[in-house]
């Protein structure tokens, strides 16, 4: 190994600046069996240091010859090498630099240099969650991290915690501190050759009794029950601020090997997944109490989705849909097509049991992924991908008479990368551009759309998938950058279509954020953004075979816009989500291979709604002559006048109705 100091580096740089001796000989082709000698072949550099490589090209006889040299780093964001062979250390790790001779006759011999850049030395230990005071009989969890001089955590180094006096405070292997007897104790943290001591005062717990009370004694699965622990001192006075530990014991009605059936949070919120008795135990020091509540089956009336009608599209894949009441009072629907002829199909769905295909428009595209209609039922905008001139963009139609859609104009300026999704709101169209932003187009004069604004996340690698507008707020879905709420006219941040202003955002680790729908729960006052995933870990089959996507619905509580919290999910096993819609307290999810799902989202939400029995009904759309036969791929739902319309990728347009399930299967 070879280690360079900054001084050594400087000396070498000066040496290399001197002109080299001209050499007469030259390798002409790789078969000359030359060799590249590079010195040093191993380097150890600290972050920020530089070193110069010295290189020779030798012919098969070991004689130095002339030739051009190519220096390449295989991790240029961590270690850089100049065209002259100067190496710069940027980030810790082990890396490889290739030094290759470039010959007139082809690729020449090469040598490799291994560069080791050690992590910066640890300079401190940071503790998270360490209290200054701890009441006897209570516990708290503490975590520790070794940090370097840049205050960056050293993930390769672990921190071990211990107590200076186990009688006063015990520490377990998972970082839980439990206070024993009053006194002063030192929490000792060791890691990376460093030690950090944190003093904790353990004081006598004044709590002598604890009374536990739920917000309701009889609940349903999925109801969030709030337990409150009233703490009292020896003289009967109320005490606040002493932590309470909650645990749970479940006695489900179904005793046949049932799994975990409920969830208790340390703020006292509880939710049951299956019917039964649930005993919540709260402890604080030596005081404790327990309370048993009854949780019943949430849905007492069985309901199902009954097929009303099917508008088959069996020759090409169907994409999104939009249902609206036309200017003539009849009901219409438009559906897009995917990987085909650039068609959008118009339907009369006034009688959904006999949906009538009334018109087809064709634009220069392969996929019309999204379709939207203005609030007054006059304008329809469709997205284009795969245009022959690669300009894509959107096309605007007058659909005052949906039987004869009239093409008004197209708009593709700066939308050339393909418009995947769009929205229409109060005379403005919101069109995704290049997977990076949405542009706001003024279409109040639909013959001459103009771009008035755009919204883009400028973080590295940010990408967008969808945008939805409600009450002057745009909700965009941005894969790993999650949901962004943007004021485009609501007024909360002074935004407008021409001046979109970010309100808040939330991202989750999977990076699967594909759709978002806002929902304000009138019962609880909670404001959620319901975010859907899209993921194909097992691929997608466009023909012959069914597809098995994955993903779920995320419920993000945005009630506090500055502190959004992901509080619940709806996850159907072995299936994957696509688009969603919320009306009243019902969530409609096109769950791809899981078909259409209807979910009760009333009340406060916590945990997995699927396991809590909140799912009301499902419908699996299949057709033996579908593009993929007998394979559901529900794409997007939309409730309309008491019915639920949805598109299916393999079989077209469907209409179903939520009805009581009387148990008849035929």
């Amino acid at each position, binding site marked *: 190994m070879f280690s360079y100091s900054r001084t050594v580096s400087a000396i070498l740089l000066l040496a290399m600046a001197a002109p080299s001796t001209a050499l007469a000989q030259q390798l002409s082709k790789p078969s000359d069996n030359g060799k590249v000698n590079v010195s040093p072949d191993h380097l150890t550099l600290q972050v920020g240091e530089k070193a110069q490589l010295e290189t020779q090209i030798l012919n098969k006889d070991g004689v130095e010859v002339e030739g051009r040299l190519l220096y390449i780093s295989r991790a240029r964001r961590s270690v850089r090498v100049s065209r002259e062979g100067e190496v710069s250390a940027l980030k810790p790790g082990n890396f490889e630099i290739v030094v290759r001779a470039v*010959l007139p006759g082809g690729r020449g011999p090469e040598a490799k240099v291994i560069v080791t850049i050690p992590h910066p030395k640890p300079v401190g230990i940071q503790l998270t969650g360490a209290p200054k005071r701890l009441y006897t009989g209570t516990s708290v969890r503490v975590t520790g991290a070794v940090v370097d001089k840049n205050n960056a955590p050293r993930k390769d180094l672990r921190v071990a915690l211990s107590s200076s006096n186990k009688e006063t405070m015990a520490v377990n292997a998972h970082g839980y501190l439990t206070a024993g007897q009053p006194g002063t104790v030192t929490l000792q943290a060791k890691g990376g050759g460093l030690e950090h001591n944190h003093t904790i005062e353990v004081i006598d717990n004044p709590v002598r009794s604890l009374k536990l009370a739920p917000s309701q004694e009889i609940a349903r699965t999925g109801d969030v029950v709030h337990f409150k622990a009233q703490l009292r001192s020896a003289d009967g006075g109320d005490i606040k601020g002493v932590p309470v530990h909650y645990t749970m014991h479940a006695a489900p009605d179904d005793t046949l090997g049932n799994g975990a059936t409920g969830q208790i949070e340390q703020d006292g919120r509880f939710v049951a997944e299956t019917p039964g008795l649930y005993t919540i135990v709260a402890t604080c020091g030596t005081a404790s109490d327990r309370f048993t509540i009854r949780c019943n089956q949430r849905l007492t009336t069985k309901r199902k989705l009954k097929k009303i009608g099917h508008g088959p599209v069996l020759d090409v894949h169907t994409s999104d849909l939009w249902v609206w009441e036309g200017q003539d009072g009849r009901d219409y629907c438009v559906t897009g097509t995917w990987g*085909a002829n650039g068609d959008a199909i118009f339907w009369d769905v006034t009688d959904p049991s006999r949906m009538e295909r009334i018109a087809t428009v064709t634009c220069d595209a392969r996929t019309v992924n999204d379709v939207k209609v203005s609030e007054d039922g006059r304008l329809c905008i469709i997205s284009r991908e*795969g245009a022959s001139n690669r300009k894509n963009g959107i096309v605007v139609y007058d659909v005052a008479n949906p039987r004869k859609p009239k093409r008004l104009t197209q708009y593709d300026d700066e939308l050339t990368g*393909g418009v995947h999704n769009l929205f229409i709101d109060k005379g403005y169209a919101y069109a995704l551009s290049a997977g990076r932003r949405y542009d706001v187009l003024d279409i109040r004069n639909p013959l001459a759309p103009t771009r008035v604004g755009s919204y883009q996340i400028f973080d590295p690698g940010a990408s*967008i998938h969808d945008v939805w507008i409600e009450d002057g707020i745009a909700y965009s879905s941005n894969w790993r950058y999650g949901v962004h709420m943007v004021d485009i006219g609501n007024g909360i941040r002074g935004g407008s279509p021409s001046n979109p202003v970010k309100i808040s955002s939330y991202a989750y680790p999977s990076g699967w954020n594909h759709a978002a729908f806002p929902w304000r729960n009138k019962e609880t006052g909670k404001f959620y953004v319901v975010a859907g995933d*899209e993921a194909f870990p097992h691929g997608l089959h466009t023909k012959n075979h069914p597809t098995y996507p994955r993903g779920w619905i995320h419920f993000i509580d945005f009630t506090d816009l500055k502190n959004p919290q992901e509080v619940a999910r709806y996850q159907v096993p072995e299936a994957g989500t696509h688009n969603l819609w919320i009306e009243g307290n019902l969530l409609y999810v096109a769950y791809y291979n899981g078909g259409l799902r209807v979910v009760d989202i009333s009340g406060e939400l916590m945990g997995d709604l699927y396991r809590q029995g909140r799912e009301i009904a499902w419908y699996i759309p299949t057709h033996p002559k579908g593009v993929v036969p007998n394979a559901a791929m529900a794409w997007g739902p939309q409730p309309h006048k008491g019915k639920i319309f949805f598109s299916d990728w393999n079989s077209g347009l469907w209409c179903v109705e939520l009805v009581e399930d009387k148990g008849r299967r035929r």
Partner: protein
Amino acid sequence: MLATLVVASGLSAQTFPANVGTYRVYVACESADEVALVAFDGKEAKVERVIEVGYQPTEIEGPHGLTVGPEGKYWYLSIAHGKPFGILYKYRTSDDKLVGECELGMFPATMQISPATGLLYCVNFNLHGRMLPSTVSIVDPDAMVEVARTVTGAMPHGSRLSKDGLHHYSCAMMSGELYEIDAVTFKVTRNMQLDVNLPKGHQSEAKPTWISPHPDGKRIFAALNGKATIVEVDAKNWSVTRRLQTGKGPYNLDISPDGSTLVATYKTEGAIGIWDLAKGKERARIKSTRRVTHGVVISPDGRYAFVSSEGKNADPGALDVVDLRTNKLVASAAVGLQAGGVAFFEHKK
């Protein structure tokens, strides 16, 4: 010898005539997210295999550029749309298995591997949105890592290397420029405006879409898509020496290994132009089998030109085969939607 092998393998001599052997090319189908391997036996072109590509199944990711490595062991494919950046994929030619990938810039498009540096040079076409200067990604295909990016003009396209592999050429479609990059230092060494009129607001009227260095190393040919012109540039003096009037929308070019013939696709016209470079004359103009003609590659023996044709809407794409001895279209194979990038793989006699 070949006849014996054909009989022994049970294949009819009609399918694989002994006189020309079998040519194989890869064709990227941009709106189908697939690549077709097409075999041509002198009479008939057939799709032997279709390889599904990409990772976002419900979106058109747009496989665009194709090249086969110098040793023929791997083929490389650029995919235009990612989240948001495009990706370079590496496949094994023996079984078309994916063996590596590397994220590049916005809409990576055409590319080639230098025989001198061993590196792959791919233009980031950045078709999307605003017409800003874009880049050429330089990739180490052994490790599939991007080792550098060189800034060039707006919408760079037509990434091609000089025969010795020491100079990279591309054109910037929207700023109307020809760029030369030193393949070893990765620095732009020269650039020139290819149009007689300067572009206004990054909207070149000439719209150069392709560059083809001549095998003699002295000339570079550029297709001016917006001006129905092919220009010849003197590589030494760095000046335009000839302007050849073509059919509508010249798009891609290739030059025969002996340097005598240039084949141009006329995208707008849906045709193929065959040029005698010595005379500066169009020898023949042939209609493509589809409406939008795209890419072209000439076999190493100079006998055939393989031309991709996009079609429109639900029309399948096509790979047309032109016999450069007779200047006739001799075969065509239907492939997936919007056939674009085309790369020569092998000629087995």
